[in-house]
């Protein structure tokens, strides 16, 4: 069971009076890395646990053409890498990685052990004790352990969350290189928008237990389905529209509804471009240097706004709005 597409249909999870997941329906393409992104408390880990069979759920989990609902975790063929790795402290690295290979025969287990250790660049860690590993090494071993039984789908619950911010993207990219090398379908949790856009072949955006949008990172970024989905992938300005459906008479690139159904013009900073004449007249409140450009903030027709450009010289700038 490798590289199979994963589908969840109407997945719901209830804990006491709280509905943690509400009828989530989404598909992860086979052999691709799907990133499940959302803020803290959105239900990301709950969704992974439901897929893995660790939480009772409503709805269906379908791997390939096999329905997994009702099966226990050990019967789902799903691999799961938790935050902090959850390595077994009483086993060394080889013992941990080979844990899920019971019953495969000694030669086959050795072959798989060698293969996943090489895939995860962890051959040199083979005989090491778990408490001697660094954070990044632990995650590589945890990934190798999850890949060893060749699961139909691999779920990664933000396994790099404990790492230093400067290392996170590097380790995440390295781990997902190994996942892609294995050809396994993967669903990866993150709450970081840069990680979501950088790592994903496919995106699931989730908030408050509901799926907001799914699609390629570019499609989700350029054509967000809701104001909330747009916010998950980057800075946005959500402005109430004028009665004529414009902003100060100018057409806007995207009009979206928020959760209450109110229509907003949804702009990203890069939608606004400083020009010498014409366009909006913006009042500049301040600016911060980003290295290659300045991030300028102020107001346009009384609405808070952010855009990028050269260092502002004066209290006003003219801005045009890109509609594509």
């Amino acid at each position, binding site marked *: 069971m490798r590289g199979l597409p994963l589908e969840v249909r109407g997945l719901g999870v209830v804990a006491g009076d709280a509905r943690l997941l509400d009828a989530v329906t989404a598909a992860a393409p086979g052999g691709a890395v799907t990133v499940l992104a959302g803020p803290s408390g959105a239900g990301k880990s709950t969704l992974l646990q439901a897929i893995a069979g*660790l939480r009772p759920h409503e709805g269906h989990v379908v791997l390939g053409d096999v329905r997994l609902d009702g099966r226990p975790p*050990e019967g789902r063929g799903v691999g799961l890498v938790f935050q902090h790795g*959850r390595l077994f402290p*009483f086993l060394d690295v080889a013992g941990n990685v080979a844990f899920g290979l*019971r019953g495969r025969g000694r030669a086959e287990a050795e072959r798989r052990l060698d293969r996943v250790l090489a895939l995860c660049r962890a051959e040199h860690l083979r005989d090491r004790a778990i408490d001697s590993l660094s954070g990044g090494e632990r995650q590589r071993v945890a990934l190798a352990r*999850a890949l060893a039984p060749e699961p139909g789908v691999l779920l990664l619950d933000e396994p790099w969350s404990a790492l230093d911010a400067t290392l996170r993207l590097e380790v995440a990219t390295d781990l997902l290189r190994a996942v892609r090398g294995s050809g396994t379908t993967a669903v990866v949790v993150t709450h970081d928008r840069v990680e979501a856009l950088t790592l994903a072949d496919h995106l699931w955006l989730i908030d408050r237990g509901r799926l907001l949008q799914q699609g390629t990172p570019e499609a989700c970024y350029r054509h967000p389905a809701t104001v909330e989905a747009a916010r998950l992938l980057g800075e946005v300005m959500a402005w109430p529209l004028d009665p004529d459906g414009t902003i100060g008479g100018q057409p806007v690139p995207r009009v979206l509804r928020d959760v209450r159904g109110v229509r907003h013009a949804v702009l990203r900073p890069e939608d606004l471009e400083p020009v010498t004449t014409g366009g909006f007249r913006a009042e500049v409140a301040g600016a911060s240097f980003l290295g290659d450009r300045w991030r300028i903030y102020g107001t346009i027709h009384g609405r808070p706004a952010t855009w990028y450009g050269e260092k502002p010289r004066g209290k006003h700038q003219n801005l045009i709005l890109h509609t594509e």
Partner: protein
Amino acid sequence: MIGRVWSAVLAVCLLVPVLVAAVTVVPGVPWAGPTSEGTGPFAYVLGLYGPYWLRSAFLALGVGGTALLVGTPAGVVLGRTRSRVLRAWLSTPLVVPGIALAVGIVALWGAVRGLLLLAAAHVLVVLPLVVRTVAAAVQGADLDALLQQARVLGESPARAWWRVGVPVLRRPLLASLLMAAAVSWGEFNVTFLLATPDRATFPAALYLAFTTNSLPVGGAALVLFLLPVVPLAWLAQAVGGEARQAA
């Protein structure tokens, strides 16, 4: 530094009286006084109280094992629960004095005197120790998370327990067993009320030796009393320390 010195002073204060009593078995110790038993103090104690020593040893091993079997599931539950009420309830026996427990047992099962009742009482005394040790290990090792991981890697709940739960808890369980056996070996309060003269344990013999025999005989009884309990306590401490490190 001050803390270490203070701890060392306390340890000396606790150990010196024991050592003073123990060395009375050495011939010529000035404060030992004359002996009237007509034989060496160890031979005398073993001849008179040997069966007490053996009974205590069997009792300690049986009590330790039973407490482990009975207390481990409760320790796992306590380690997993977030209920403060349950925690408080399971922790209450820790603060009940042994003599109170003995009075309660006499009131409840007084008619059933015998070694079995004594063993049951000892189990009740040491049970909180086992439960608390196992509970702390369950919490420290994040056992549920590891069991979940084992399930996802293909193990049934029972096999997950066997392959992960048992190895993770092995050292805390061994430490509990040793501590329970050590406490049972030295338990006097409960034994004093519950044991009949023909079923008395070695602590009772120690009491008799000091109250009815010469000081060297009492010292010999003390040495024989400490012989298994000190290594047991040290071993439990060592195993417990390693268990904490592993967790």
